[in-house]
């Protein structure tokens, strides 16, 4: 094996190691207790009781539903799983609030109590419309996140990574939805 080749491998390994350090540095350590406090009770390893907020049948209020699901350890991953359960629709008496086919692409927590939720196009494309319908979609997401993550103050909706003006033409979605306004 010639010297040049060995040198090349060493350089590549160093670069890889540095890159790994940088990548891992931004990750939450897996064993750490989740910050912000999980409201739901931890039942066994990785299984947690979560609260989902749906609308009622007469479109006059919200109904809560509890579920026990396996959740990832990191907060963003957990929030994504919770919202995926919400998107799947109710098992009880409630009415779905996220349009059929809506996927949760990613969830991001900032350090000021803000949550950014990136939905797939179906959120807008399949929405039934109406300002009440829009309000329930927002309320159910905001309240669900607030019920499961104690420090959430506001929620921003994104679609396919971009900002949207409204979900169905009524409620201004260019600003964050404050938890206090959507109780």
């Amino acid at each position, binding site marked *: 094996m010639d010297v040049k080749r060995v040198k090349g491998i060493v350089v590549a390994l160093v670069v890889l190691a540095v890159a790994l350090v940088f990548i891992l540095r931004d990750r939450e350590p897996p064993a750490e207790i989740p910050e912000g406090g999980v409201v739901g009770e931890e039942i066994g390893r990785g299984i947690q009781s979560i609260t989902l907020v749906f*609308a*009622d*049948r*007469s*479109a*006059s209020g919200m109904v809560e539903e509890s579920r026990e699901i396996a959740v990832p350890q990191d907060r963003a991953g957990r929030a994504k799983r919770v919202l995926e359960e919400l998107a799947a629709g109710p098992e009880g008496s409630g*009415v*779905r609030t996220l349009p059929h086919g809506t996927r949760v692409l990613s969830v991001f927590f900032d350090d000021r109590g*803000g949550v950014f939720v990136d939905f797939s196009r179906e959120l807008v494309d399949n929405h*039934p*419309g*109406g*300002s*009440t*319908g829009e*309000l*329930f979609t927002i309320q159910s997401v905001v309240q669900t996140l607030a019920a499961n993550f104690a420090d959430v103050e*506001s929620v*921003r909706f994104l679609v396919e990574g971009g900002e949207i*003006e*409204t979900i*169905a*033409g*009524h*409620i*201004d*979605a*260019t*600003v*964050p939805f*404050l938890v206090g*306004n959507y109780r």
Partner: protein
Amino acid sequence: MMRRSGVAAAVVLFALVVASPSARAGSLLVDFSDARPAARVETKQLDGVTYVRLADLARGVGGARHWNPKTGKLTLAVGTHRIGISSDNPFATLDQEVRNLGRPVWLSEGTFWVPQSFIESVLGPAVNSDVSWHPDARTFTFTRLGPVVTSIQLETRQEGTAIVLGLNELADFVAESAERGAVEVLVTGGRLVDSLAILEGEGLVASVIVSQADEGVRADIAAAPEATSFEAELYHDPYRIEILVRSSHDAPFMAPELRGRQGLLPEGRNVLGSWGTDVETVMIDPGHGGRDQGASGPAGSVEKNAMLALARELSRALQREGFYVFMTRSSDSYVPLDRRAELSNLAAADVFLSLQCDAWYSRSATGFRVAYHAPAPPRWRAHGRSRGAGLRYVESAGASAGGVLEWDHVQDAFRDESERLAALVHDSMADDLDVADRGVAARNLAVLAGCAMPAILIETGFISNGADEARLADEGFRRSVAEAIARGVAEYRRTLTGRD
């Protein structure tokens, strides 16, 4: 030696100066009536006929020459016209037409010379000009001819009646209405080749008479009594001017002076300060439209259509109450949300009413609701966005003390009035309509955010509910809803001005 050469030079110079006028070469002038500079064109006499140098003419009219050595043909491109000549050939082509020049084109030492008649018979028409010859000044004067009004046609459309004036080229025009029912359109510098008139009109147009005036071609349009506004626009392909006459029966979209161009904004007017003296003008905003269908019902009703039908009914009801009415759309067209608010601001409307349908997954949800704007929470962004022209408008209007108001916070200043208006319209609807009452709500509604006047959004029912959908499709019910809303707005006017 020196002296000799000096004398020789003087002789040559003398010969040049004195001899040139008597030489066969000369020149003439081509003068243009517009801003183009006059062109000096070299001439030569050949067998008693004056020939002019084509290159000089081409330069004068701004034409481009293309020489094809294979065919021996030279093409001169002037604007969209093509002139073709070839040496020793007395015929020239202008586009598809052949013109006889009387004498053959002469090619001498690589330069094309054409008989003088070429200027009048070929070049003049190619640049749409009249040509006259002034022998004393040895000058051809080109006078540009104006656009020709070639045709006139009436078209009945959904939005009104359109008068289409056909043109042979682009033209400037002015359209104005000095008195009610009469619109005068002047095609500046235009020419009329055949007389044009429509004496028996249709729709909103009673007659159109087109005549030649000194300033150009004039079209006098007599509108039907129910016509209330018009719009005039120039179009390409084919060139034409369309004058659309509208009627308030359909609810006018915008008076012509309110077409929403930035330049038409009242200079220095304070939008916030302008409101509050009276309630005269109402802007109706039929929700959704065009590619934005809105919600839809189990029987297939679509919100955008249902709301346009209701808006027309409401327009009539409000006019009966003595209001002047505008609509953000009067056809099935897409209007962005901030544009709706902007239109209302431009129209200086005193009240903004957005008409909507609610919808929900559960078909049992039913009833109407009236909403007003809940102020938006503070922004996270470091810099507020300047969405749409609403911000420009507020800026240009001077806004509130000390600067720019974020356009989507304009409505915050009207929150109390909007809440009061919402309550009065709600009460009137609750009294008159036998439908479920969902009350009054404050919501962060994008369409209301930029409105510089009391503004509400009326959810007229759940289109997703079979019974609500059927009611909204019923003309009698729509009229009841329209009348209830109109009474609510009239009541609001009474509380504000003490006037019925």
